[in-house]
């Protein structure tokens, strides 16, 4: 869809391995479920045990992944993204930080900190805009969930200063 999404060339050995990574991961997931399902007991078709169904699906998954590894792809719909992982990685780290902070400090402080980071460093807004937007978005989210929907969030260290929860 976007012109800058460049397709991975198919020629080098490195690319051939790269294209097969998802199939290998899929096969490993299948193997994990297959072994787990056998551990649960497969039973028979006339007396199915809890492991029967997952083992059938796992075999299909492994089979498809093996086919994928054998034929590979033409790399047409794979994006070359190794050099662009930094920003999504920062995004994931920021979100993890929010989850960790949220359970300790509640919504307001965590929301402010994480949104300022997000707007300033990921969205590249100015410091002023980042702070203004973070305050605005956090207040709206607080009002929406805590006041309007009466959601039960972890105790909020900031809102408590004003007698909120």
């Amino acid at each position, binding site marked *: *869809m*976007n012109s800058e999404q460049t397709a991975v060339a198919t020629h080098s050995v490195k690319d051939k391995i790269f294209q097969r990574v*998802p199939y290998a991961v*899929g096969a490993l*997931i*299948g193997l994990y*479920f297959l072994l*787990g399902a056998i551990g*649960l007991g497969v039973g*028979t*078709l*006339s*007396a*199915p*045990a*809890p*492991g029967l*169904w*997952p083992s059938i*699906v*796992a075999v*299909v*998954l492994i089979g*498809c992944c093996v*086919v*994928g590894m054998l034929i590979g*792809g033409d790399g047409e*719909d*794979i*994006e070359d*993204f190794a050099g*662009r992982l930094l*920003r*999504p990685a920062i*995004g*994931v780290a920021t*979100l993890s930080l*929010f*989850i960790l902070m*949220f*359970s300790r400090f509640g*919504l307001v402080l965590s*929301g402010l900190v994480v*949104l300022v980071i*997000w*707007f300033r460093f*990921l*969205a*590249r*807004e100015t410091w002023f805009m980042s702070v203004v*937007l*973070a305050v605005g*978005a956090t207040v709206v*989210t607080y009002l*929406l*969930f805590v006041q309007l*929907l009466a*959601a*039960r*969030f972890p105790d909020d260290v900031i809102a408590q200063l004003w007698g909120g929860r």
Partner: protein
Amino acid sequence: MDSLTNLIDGFGVILTPANLLYVLLGVMIGTVIGVLPGLGPTATIALLLPFTYGMEPTSAIIMLAGVYYGSMYGGTITSVLLRIPGEAASAVTAIDGYEMTKAGRAGPALAISAVGSFIGGTIAIIGLILIAPSLAGFAVRFGPPEYVTLTVLGIVMVTYLGTKSTLKSVIAAAIGLLLAVVGTDPIAGTTRFTLGLPGLFSGIDLVAVAMGLFGVSEILYVMERSGQSHGKIGEVGRLTFSREDWKASRGPITRGSLLGFPIGVLPGGGGVLSSIASYGVEKRRSKHPEEFGKGAIEGVAGPETANNASSISAFIPLLTLGLPSNAVLALILGALMAQNITPGPQLITAHPELFWGVIASMLVGNLILLLLNWPMVGFFVQLLRVRIGIIGGIAMLITLVGVYTLNNSTFDMWVMLIMGVLGYFMRKFGFEPAPLVLAFVLGAILEESFRQSMLLSDGSLAIFATRPISAVLSVFVLVFIASSIWGAVRKDKKPSIIDQAKELAGED
């Protein structure tokens, strides 16, 4: 006549101030989301799910339905004015719509899409009223073997009709089925694949999965390129079309409605496929096919009508069989389940106020959209000035907080984040997340029906071939599988319609 009195009762349900407000809210949110690139209808509905838990079931569904077909309208605006499809189904509209804008004909393009969408939507609602009750009546007789073959057919078709590699879609679907197994076994009661985590004993939450795969991954994906601004927004001009425009569009609108309706019913069909099919048909029928791609109004009217018709008819499998046909409907199924309503053949008789209320709301919602489009296009265009990084940050906060409210636990937040990362890499490697989510939703129904069938037949797989309905469905399943394999062996990438799609949509 029965349908008519029921429909009037449906209007009784919908024409209360509160429910009218929910329709309005749904279509407004849907349109705004359709306009904003980066957040699709699936992510939005996932985002809104927690808000629906406190609502009446009917209100919840009419709002979510409004978001869905409202987003189809909204996506058109950005496609026409900027060549940026706000959602996938409008990608085809961008081709001729944007050319019309360049020629100073944005007004007619938007106006004919609005009228076409309204007509397509209305015709599809009439089709729904005519077909759904008898289909449900027929489906009441379905037993476990029929449900097995039907869900398998659904999953097979989703992988077959997808826009990317069939093999990859099958892999995604298989992973979805395996994730559905996590939790407590429905029949024996033992826990499976829970890694000892109490948060997984009741299974992985559908909303966390969907929000992660569609919402979080989409935002991570667009964050790579944030900071880029949109191109210049074209002049809208007067939102009217001439008599000649109407004469040229009449046929495409009629055919778009008739084409979009059946495609929407198909699992995995939905908006994208119907708009592509309509574009293909109009180009082939046209006396001047060379004008397509250079601003032919037929190339806007047909696809826009078709994708709206299909977004309405996509409700038929869910409301009559309890089986969602795409990821959006899977989430609406989730919303119903959260209200302790299990959709299925009994839905129409057990909850007539819900069924007919939703239908009435669709008629009202389509009318609101038609009226809304005229005065508000200018406002929607202004929304495009909001930078994607800002939308991303706010959406992330609401998503995380919203998923917490599902079970008041941070566990679901982590599940969503992991699913977001998975979805991000799936996109990067050319996997579609939709088959995974759909298979995840159907997984429980499929496993339970399969095990019940095996108990019924004393372990004989012949049960799927000896009962007439499941035999017919099994034949379809085999035909689709055989045709996929045949296509792969012959090195055809995809059936012809998909090739056409790639040619049309990816002509960049």
